[in-house]
């Protein structure tokens, strides 16, 4: 029984911390992008706008929940849940410290599990587009499906090099394997590059935010959502960002290892650095065209990832 209790505490702690991070991610994003455009960002609610996120959450909770008359009620209702739940589930095997004591579940195929589970979120997006019974939503959902299918391949392949070097798929083992030697970002720089691009595309962020392209599709798949249901999509997007950042921190940046500071702090620094890159990209780049997106995925990233796998295999075998 105590084991179960401990697990419950860990789950609650992780989910709370992540959801809080998400709330302040939105704040940080608005601040960073604001300053990159030489404006202050949120600044009126609380000291320097720090209470903006709680205010936004409150607003979303008390907002009216509108369901379009022609929408499929059940699918419209279930889609946001289907989007959020996999994103939160994917947090389970993320090791926040070296020993793995803050880990919810050390699965021996941790990375594979995360990739598989977070990919389930695409069902939520497709159902949202379909269930809303709106052209814009459906277009967004279709794009999202195509994008996810293309970039999932590159994302998976880019991590294969890491699996080969560490000889394991468990998040804890991968970060342990790096503590003795160099961080995998050095030998696997090609894989790291492919991973970064594919991760941005996977989370539907700028410059690959075609599913929710504001300028052409209004808001894409969540155009018919309001209130808490909309907030679920929002939460899912940011949770996914945290998940892909965590994988990057574990697989390429040595997990929780670092000097002087405690491991947990190091881990969070790495994850937040990644999140900052997400914001930075959003402030800088315009959106890719749809055919360009597919071209980058199939003609550049997948061959690069495959080349990386072959090179890693050759080096592993002969050196």
């Amino acid at each position, binding site marked *: 029984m105590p084991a179960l209790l401990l697990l419950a505490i860990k789950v609650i702690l992780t989910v709370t911390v992540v959801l809080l991070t998400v709330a302040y991610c939105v704040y940080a994003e608005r601040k*960073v992008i604001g*300053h*990159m*455009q*030489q*404006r*202050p960002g949120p*600044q*009126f609610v609380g000291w320097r706008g720090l209470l903006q996120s709680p205010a936004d959450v409150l607003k979303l909770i008390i907002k009216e929940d509108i369901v379009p008359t022609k929408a499929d009620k059940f699918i419209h209702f279930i889609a946001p849940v289907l989007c959020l739940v996999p994103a939160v589930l994917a947090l389970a095997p993320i090791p926040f410290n070296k020993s793995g004591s803050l880990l919810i579940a050390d699965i021996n195929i941790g990375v594979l599990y995360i990739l598989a589970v977070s990919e389930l979120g695409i069902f939520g997006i497709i159902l949202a587009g379909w269930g809303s019974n709106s052209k814009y939503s459906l277009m967004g959902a279709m794009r999202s499906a195509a994008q996810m299918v293309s970039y999932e391949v590159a994302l998976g392949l880019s991590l294969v090099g890491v699996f080969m070097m560490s000889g394991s798929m468990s998040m804890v083992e991968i970060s342990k394997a790096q503590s003795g030697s160099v961080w995998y970002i050095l030998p696997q720089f090609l894989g790291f590059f492919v991973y970064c691009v594919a991760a941005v595309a996977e989370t539907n962020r700028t410059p690959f935010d075609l599913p929710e392209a504001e300028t052409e599709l209004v808001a894409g798949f969540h155009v018919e959502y309001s209130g808490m249901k909309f907030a679920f999509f929002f939460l899912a997007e940011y949770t996914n960002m945290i998940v892909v950042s965590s994988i990057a921190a574990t697989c390429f940046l040595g997990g929780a290892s670092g000097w002087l500071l405690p491991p947990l702090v190091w881990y969070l620094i790495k994850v937040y650095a990644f999140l900052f890159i997400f914001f*930075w*990209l959003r*402030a*800088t*780049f315009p959106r890719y065209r749809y055919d360009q997106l597919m071209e980058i995925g199939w003609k550049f990233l997948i061959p690069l990832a495959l080349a990386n796998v072959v090179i890693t295999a050759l080096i592993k075998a002969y050196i």
Partner: protein
Amino acid sequence: MGIKEFIGWVTLKDLRQGLGVTLKHLRRPVVTYPYPKQEFLAEERWRGLHTLWKDENTGLERCIGCCLCEKICPNWAITITTSHADDGKKVVDEFIVNAGRCLYCGFCAEVCPVRAIRQSTDYARKVHKRGDIILNKKELLERGGQD
């Protein structure tokens, strides 16, 4: 594609440059005003709300009622009513500037032969009722001065 461009393409030169620009701007100071909290002070040459001016020697209105400003206004924001006094002189009975229609182009101030209508640095016409946005002659004269 020359060798130099090829190297630039492989190393994502244009993307790197873009990221550099945004990072440079991150360190620069904020240029926007938190408007209602911090009042924005317009430059002297700002083309804001209109004023009618009086002559400093006689204290009479400078406007001679030529209606050139009414004619030139691209948005028909100015309406002038004139009549003739007993001595045959033209009198401006009413001078209305509809600040809701005005696009602050400054043509009226430029065309006026006696510099009667001018633009001030006041840029905000904050009123509670829509009708109040219209400036009449009395208010225009109050906003102006003598010189």
